[in-house]
């Protein structure tokens, strides 16, 4: 940024400081770190929104994250970490004056960005296909306490419920479970904790290897979900038919922390599922935008490196461009467990 200072015609006291490459380098670095602090606080607003909705509506998050694919998330983490490695290696190459290695490392870093965005696109496409885009495009969009798209929500519920109960549930598994649960007479609040304590001892393995708890539906809602009695969702929303009988048994995951089905959410929480997707898209979207900006910066570095601009004496842009790229990585390091690994 300050690199344009001419080396002639400078007052002598500046020559001792800003005019040495080192001084200029440190100024640029300090400026970049301050800028990174602003980035952290800007993302911080989204982390704050996340914390508040997750803290106060945990079940919404436990439910909604089922739509996310943790393997794609993990793959993207590896891709981004690898591109951070190549970036750091590129800085080293620039410092040592290894022009060709620098160019190779910058191109590798850029390709890492391309890979990340490709995977992100695949993920977004999956959300789009299931009507899980943010705001009014979301199948779970609720307005004034009622779903805005009664036709779309059914499909989305089936999709996520199936995921949340093991991923390979029968075609109507989601509804199946949801209905059985919703039918449960949950009005006896005193019975609920008892039921849960009984249930938590009765572990069983599902076909997919998840530990699960079998709760007799007759005992009502598991206590760990909420102490608020669950009204009969089916009748209230009119979404799900009540034709399924699964012998009065609801299968829920072990200890209740990992997986949720739609019907286990209170009506109020059901109205907030679309906010989970809004937060997911805002966080990953803003992060994706930063990846794109970072890629643009790296592309600019590639062009300059190809011209042989950088060397032992002058590599400030590589270093501070690299700092930006690492920050993008740093933010993803937090986004990944918070969004994909909810437990």
């Amino acid at each position, binding site marked *: 940024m300050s690199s344009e200072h001419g080396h002639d015609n400078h007052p002598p006291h500046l020559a001792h400081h800003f005019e040495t490459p080192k001084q200029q380098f440190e100024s640029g670095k300090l400026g970049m770190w*301050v800028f990174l602090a602003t980035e952290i606080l800007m993302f911080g*607003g989204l982390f704050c929104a996340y914390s*508040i909705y997750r803290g106060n509506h945990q079940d919404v998050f436990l439910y909604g994250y089922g739509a996310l694919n943790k393997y794609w998330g993990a793959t993207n983490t590896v891709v981004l970490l690898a591109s951070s490695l190549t970036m750091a290696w590129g800085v080293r190459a620039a410092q040592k004056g290894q022009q060709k290695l620098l160019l190779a490392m910058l191109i590798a870093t850029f390709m890492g960005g391309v890979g990340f965005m490709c995977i992100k696109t695949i993920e977004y496409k999956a959300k789009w296909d299931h009507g899980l885009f943010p*705001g009014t495009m979301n199948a779970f969009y609720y307005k004034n306490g009622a779903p805005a798209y009664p036709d779309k929500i059914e499909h989305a519920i089936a999709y996520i419920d199936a995921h949340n109960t093991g991923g390979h549930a029968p075609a109507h598994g989601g509804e199946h479970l949801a209905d059985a649960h919703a039918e449960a007479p949950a009005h006896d609040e005193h019975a609920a904790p008892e039921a849960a304590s009984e249930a938590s001892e009765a572990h069983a393995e599902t076909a997919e290897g998840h530990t699960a708890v079998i709760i007799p539906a007759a005992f009502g809602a598991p206590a760990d979900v909420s102490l608020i009695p669950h009204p009969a969702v089916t009748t209230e929303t009119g979404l799900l038919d009540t034709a399924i009988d699964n012998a009065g048994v609801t299968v829920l995951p072990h200890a209740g922390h990992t997986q949720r089905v739609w019907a286990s959410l209170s009506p109020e929480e059901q109205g907030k599922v679309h906010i989970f997707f809004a937060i997911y898209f805002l966080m990953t979207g803003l992060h994706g935008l930063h990846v794109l900006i970072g890629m643009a910066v790296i592309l600019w570095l590639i062009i300059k490196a190809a011209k042989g601009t950088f060397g032992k004496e002058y590599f400030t842009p590589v270093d501070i461009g690299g700092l930006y790229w690492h920050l993008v990585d740093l933010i993803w390091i937090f986004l990944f467990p918070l969004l994909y690994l909810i437990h």
Partner: protein
Amino acid sequence: MSVIHDPVKAGIHGGQAPGGTNYINNSKGILSWLLTVDHKRIGLMYMVCVLGAFLLGGSFAIMLRTMLFIRAASETPISEGAQNMYNQAFTLHGAILVFMFIIPAVPAILGNMVLPLMLGAKDVAFPRLNLLSWYCWVGGAIFFMFVLINGGLDTGWTFYTPYSSSTTTAATTATMGAFILGFSSILTGLNFIATIHMLRPPGMGWFQMPLFLWALYATSVIQVLATPVLAITLLLLMAERILHVGIFDPALGGDPVLFQHFFWFYSHPAVYIMVLPAMGIISELMSTFCRRHIFGYSFIAFSSVAIALLGFLVWGHHMFTSGQSAMTNAVFSLITFSVAIPSAIKVFNWLATMYKGSIWLATPMLYALAFIWLFTIGGLTGVFLGALSLDIMAHDTYFVVAHFHYVMVGSMLTAFIGGMYYWWPKMFGKMYSEPVAKVAWFLIFFGFNLTFFIQFIAGSKGMPRRYADFVPEYAIYHEISTIGSYVLASGLFLVLFNWIHSLKYGRKAPQNPWGANTLEWHTSSPPPTENFVEDPPVSEPYVLGAWEYDASIEGFVHNKEKAAKLAQMSHH
């Protein structure tokens, strides 16, 4: 400690560039301004634009006060159309003056102008980034101008949800404008932090810095740490309006109180972005015009930092009546009182500087005195409002309006005008008319108190803020307040006239008309593009003894031998 360069070239011509060129006249043409990276030129461009915004926002103030006066004088309730117009007037008044005037005024105009000069540096650390920050300001301003001609804005400057997420006025455009203006503020803060860290001259440690720089540094820290949260808040609000994401809108399952947490996490520290640099100016003025060393240097310096940090812990006192929980209310109320401590430390140190000083009532000093008055009233009523029990009563009344105008206008604006008078000779090389300036000062001080003191009374009697209509019992307060606002406006116009008049007809300014010892007075008025032809002598900024008054030039001349002696004394 101090470095004395070339004692032969003493006197007023010590900083004169060859050929007499300065930063204003050394190149011509509009592009030489629009593409400049000279901090002084950028400061001037900021000055023109920010004063334009002040005129615009001030016009809305006069407009809404006039509407209230008309209502007070008439018998009939006002029409719905006029009520909508009133909502727009107070919103645009607040939004334009907060985002486009108060926040950039001191740092972007006076900070840009004198920060590198005070460091004896050639420019800020990142000159091109500095220019970019000006363009961000202009970009944000264009959005606000678009709001003016296209739908207006009626949310109040705070953009509270859920109204702001549903209003049909141009809230999205205004939000975008404020978002871009935020970047302008961030870039300025970033630049100042890097400059103060990296470009201090040899011999100037942190505690030899002028207090204005301490204030700007503390301000920059807030700008950098708080403004990004405003940015994300505004982005979320835009997402709420465009996509309906439901984070803040209760109809969609969102939480409108959360918006207020987001908003005030920035906007309360932003109050200190407004007032801290103003306090920095006062510290400079106090020492210079009392002709003595500032009292309690390190207390003033650290209190700036303390205010900046405490400012981040009190935002909830804007939300006492917004549904914030009782426990949080209590915590925020308690911490709010603590802000009074560093603020009072500053005031006491300024008073102690005056004690036994030879006070010189030049115009900048009159503004500094007005500042102490008005800030004390504004600050103490802030302590009242920090008390939960009183705030429940006074919240959203004119009591609050009066309180923050005493701080924002009474303090910040008077310090800004005082600083402008103080550095005007340095910026333009011209002296303004002292008698006219004093008349204008009186009009401003009198008009301001007439406008706003009465609002404390109206508010304590229950007049709610932001209402276009009111019962006849409040008519007299509104009438007096409006008359006061006209007096205030006339004073401000007189200031503007005086400044513009001085550019053409003003007496040529000496290098140092005030006898201050900060480094900007060691170069010519106006300075050359490179700021200093030779290195300025770095010494204690508030040791004024080396400057001797020379009646023939109506300015001060630096006595190098005395300076050397003083430097030795401060060593031993």
